[in-house]
């Protein structure tokens, strides 16, 4: 595979390419649905969602909330999980809950009030415990009052649909994997930072020439070239965190993903979404969840570092999963599909340093169907209150459009005011 050493690429060339594009498009440029961020910057100073940034991470595979935010103060807990608790102890959070040691790097955020959790929360999904259906419900943001699959857009897309003045770059879906959460009629951008577009300078010039008369191809190619050359700059500059001994490459790639999203969020983007997989820990959970948590930790820390203190102060990251896992570990050192789980919140905009949600207990009569942590809240309530806190969304819109049929309940005051 060819490497053209173009890390020091000629920025002027890109600039020329898109300036010519803008001139070609003339006055219709602003109306073109695929005009680039760069082209629109300056022509429109208004930010439809203001200054607050929202990052939603879908944890695919059902994260074991009981292992991540450990209810060590609950008398029943240790008995359910002899194998899983054999390793290093959790890190004390509030005297009742302890954090999984693989997230130890986040403790300074906890102390600074920039990290929080919601426990015993779930979507309205019950009983069947299928990843596919569970993620479908989580991302559609619907309840059980409408048939599964009948709502085809994601709740984060509906937030954009009800926000006037949204531009295509207001929201970004990041990564190779589809993010149905952001899919729908409101146009959003998609980019996978691992996309490679290695062109010789001559090939780039010739592409510019052949796309000259086709605005759609020209705009897309210009942006692709800009984004990939930016990526190479990041890789060369070593901004991405070095991974630990094992899984280093993976950590680098999630750090690159966070870096990419952060760069967009520093500019005109206000909402970013992506997914992290690797949570379906039916066997030897201790080893697997440690690696997945290391990725989540890298995403959060890299996001904080890349956004910088000012933007991080206006940022809310919510990581949510389709359901939790069984209270008892199974016979192979893992856990099976359950019901309620935990949500991770980070960012300078949140009121952190606490575990939100009502704790249902783990006693015999407390468990859902005698096996799972019982849900005491709906994940959509927390997301809705976050959007209300960040963007001042009307409660009626949140309960009627973004999450149709949701009862938001009392205000948990997740977001600093």
């Amino acid at each position, binding site marked *: 595979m060819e490497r053209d050493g173009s890390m020091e690429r000629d920025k002027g060339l890109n600039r020329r390419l898109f300036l010519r594009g803008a001139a070609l498009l003339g006055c219709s440029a602003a109306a073109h649905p695929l005009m680039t961020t760069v082209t629109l910057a300056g022509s429109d100073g208004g930010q439809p969602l203001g200054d607050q940034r929202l990052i939603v991470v879908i944890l695919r595979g059902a994260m074991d909330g009981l292992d991540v935010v450990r209810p060590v103060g609950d008398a029943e807990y240790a008995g359910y999980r002899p194998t899983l608790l054999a390793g290093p102890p959790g890190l004390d959070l509030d005297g009742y809950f302890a954090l999984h040691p693989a997230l130890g790097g986040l403790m300074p955020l906890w102390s600074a009030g920039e990290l929080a959790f919601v426990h015993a929360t779930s979507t309205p999904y019950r009983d069947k415990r299928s990843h596919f259906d569970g993620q479908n419900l989580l991302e559609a943001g619907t309840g059980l009052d409408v048939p599964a699959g009948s709502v085809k857009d994601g709740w984060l897309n509906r937030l954009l649909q009800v926000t006037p003045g949204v531009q295509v770059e207001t929201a970004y879906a990041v990564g190779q994997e589809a993010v149905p959460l952001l899919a729908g009629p409101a146009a959003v*951008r998609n*980019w996978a930072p691992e996309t490679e577009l290695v062109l*010789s300078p001559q090939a780039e010039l010739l592409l510019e020439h052949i796309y000259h008369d086709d605005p759609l191809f020209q705009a897309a190619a210009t942006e692709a070239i800009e984004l990939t050359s930016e990526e190479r700059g990041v890789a060369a500059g070593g901004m991405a965190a070095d991974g630990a001994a094992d899984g280093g490459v993976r950590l680098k790639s999630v750090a690159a993903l966070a870096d990419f999203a952060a760069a967009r969020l520093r500019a005109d983007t206000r909402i970013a979404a992506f997914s992290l997989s690797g949570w379906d820990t039916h066997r030897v959970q201790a080893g697997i969840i440690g690696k997945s948590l290391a990725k989540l930790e890298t995403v959060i820390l890299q996001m904080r570092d890349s956004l910088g203190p000012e933007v991080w102060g206006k940022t809310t990251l919510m990581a949510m999963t389709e359901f939790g896992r069984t209270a008892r570990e199974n016979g192979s050192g893992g856990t099976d599909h359950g019901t309620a789980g935990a949500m991770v919140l980070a960012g300078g905009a949140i009121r952190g340093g606490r575990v939100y949600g009502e704790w249902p207990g783990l006693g015999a009569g407390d468990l859902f169907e005698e096996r799972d942590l019982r849900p005491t809240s709906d994940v959509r309530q927390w997301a809705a209150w976050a959007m209300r806190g960040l963007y001042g969304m009307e409660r009626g819109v949140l309960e009627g459009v973004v999450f149709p049929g949701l009862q938001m309940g009392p205000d948990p005051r997740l977001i600093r005011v």
Partner: protein
Amino acid sequence: MTLDPTIAAFRFGYGLPVPQGAGAEPEAMLRALRGPDTVRARWPIVGMAEVLPLADAIRRLKTRAKEDAAALPLVAVAEADIEAMADAARRATLARAIDNPDSLRERLTAFWADHFTTVPRQRVEATLPYALVEDAIRPNLTGNFADLLTAVTLHPAMLTYLDQTQSVGPNSATGLRKGEGLNENLARELIELHTLGVGAGYQQDDVRQMAELLTGLGYNVRTGMFFDPKRAEPGAEVVLGQSYAGDGLTPIRAVLRDLSLRPETAAHIARKLAVHFVSDAPDAGLVAALEAAWTTSGGNLDQVYEALLRHPAAWAHEADKARQPFEFMVAALRALGITGADIGALSAKQMKRQLMWGLRDMGQVMKEARGPDGWAEAAEAWITPQGLAARISWAMQAPSLLMANLPEPLAMARAALGSRAGERLLWAVARAESLREGVGLVLASAEFNRR
């Protein structure tokens, strides 16, 4: 009317150069379509007759493995057989599209496979969407829409994908005994996507009644499609004002026939065909002509296709659509001179890295549309920064990894673009630094990617 053979190849086929024996005039294209489906024998793809015994064997092995761990490796072997069938089906689908001189048949097959999207959700289901094409779509491609709709609706791939097997009449014997109820998924999509279309004048109650009417229908790997009267909601159902009663499949067949003849269905699919083949904003006269052909023939698809091919707007020079990634890849392989036999001979690694990953990066994993509404049509949905970057990268790199001797780029440009090979593009291709980049420019060009 003089018809441009380049337009025929781009709009109704898989591009230039066309395989030997292909026609470029409506008469020749229709004659081929009305003739036998010859590529099926040459590039076979499994139907349920082959899939079912293997799926059932996997079920039995899994049951056995619960008591006897020695059976576990056998499960893995049987699942690998399913994957091998799916791999063969992917290769055959590509090979048919590349080689079949009756390219319109392949494009229409792809259109209906998308209209009736199914997606595998487990390893054992990997071949189901291909079996749907073989068993239900290809045999009914040019007949009445009612027959196509019925064959698809009763096919295991659809019954599984849209959860019909989980739907039980709440007042049926099984429903009362187990406390199970309706799953409206298939009923809803049948009306909303497969026939009348979103926004047509149906109510939630029609969907519910339709769901009740479909109860009893399901699929399992022992018997294939089944109708179990113990799961069927008792009594008659009223869908769109018409009452359906009776036992077994009779009322289900009746409602499918009636849905296929509704004027909303004619309007919905006429427009969809025009959008898919001709333009994202199709000529109103073209849509009206297709709708009229549908209505007067009672949904005879052969008549509808003929109306499409004979309408002047179908031969307009504007190319405002983008080839979808699968179509782009087939056209590129044709332009490179890669044949179906070459695809059959690719190593597993080449197949995966050069073709399947290429499609994934361009946004179109085969048989994995995001939902039952299938792939997007609009050019803007495909020619995004991400999507175009993937096409450019593939165009620049994959050809030289797939073949030893690349074609001469200018000659390839003329052969692959016909009347669309413009001066600006030829000028640039002639100035490429290497054969590899010259070929890449042709395949990445807007002229090649639009139709």
